[in-house]
């Protein structure tokens, strides 16, 4: 049985890599959709582990683009048994180009008010969004009127 840990809703499993004549190196991986014989490593780890390059392949990414990735040969310990895996370099994604989609212009974010409801939450107030027809019956933002109205509907003690 393999054991791992869960962090921020990700399943993390530590996988030891075999190195000839040197101690194993364990690298922690996020389990995505199940293990099918491929691991994704950052290029630095491929260099440190000295993994031999085998071939290039094309892979689809979640944003529907595709990239060419180098595949390396690696031997890991899986259930304490040596297992050959192909190891792909993680694609280098340019964060400059990975910005907010153009349809979400700066005006969308400019409308937001930071911490708008923070004080209310701190005071223990529950927030409920009123439907438009109810809202029109309470023209001010004063909560007293809403509370008065709702109390009329509460069963008497």
């Amino acid at each position: 049985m393999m054991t791992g840990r869960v962090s921020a809703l990700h399943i993390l499993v530590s996988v030891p890599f075999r190195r000839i004549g040197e101690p194993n190196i364990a690298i922690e991986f996020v389990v995505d959709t199940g293990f099918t014989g491929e691991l994704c490593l950052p290029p630095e780890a491929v260099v440190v582990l000295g993994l031999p390059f085998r071939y290039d392949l094309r892979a689809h990414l979640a944003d529907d683009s595709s990239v060419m990735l180098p595949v390396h040969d690696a031997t890991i310990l899986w259930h304490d048994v040596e297992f050959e895996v192909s190891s792909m370099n993680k694609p280098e994604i340019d964060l400059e180009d990975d910005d907010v989609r153009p349809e979400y212009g700066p005006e969308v974010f400019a409308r937001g008010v930071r911490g708008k409801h923070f004080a209310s939450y701190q005071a223990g107030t529950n927030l409920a969004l009123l439907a438009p027809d109810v809202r029109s019956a309470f023209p001010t933002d004063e909560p007293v009127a809403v509370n008065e109205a709702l109390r009329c509907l509460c069963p008497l003690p």
Partner: protein
Amino acid sequence: MATTRLSREEVGQRGETLYEQKIRVAVETEENIGKMVIIDVETGEYEVDDRGLAPARRLQSRHPDAALYGKRIGYDVAEALGGVRERVAP
């Protein structure tokens, strides 16, 4: 060796061209769908196996500096990282 290494994109383009022109008719059978074909993009040699590592090692043993392209038979891409790979073979 004093050969100029092909860029990763060039390997991909040459591999796809070779696959379309010569290799597809030989390997794209129902029992091979989903297997990996590794193509030496300089000599045109190729090998098929369930996974890519073993055929890549065999081709590299013949030409240690071989530029190899891995293609998933019958699919648009070999792997999907978050996206999907779609079967394109009929």
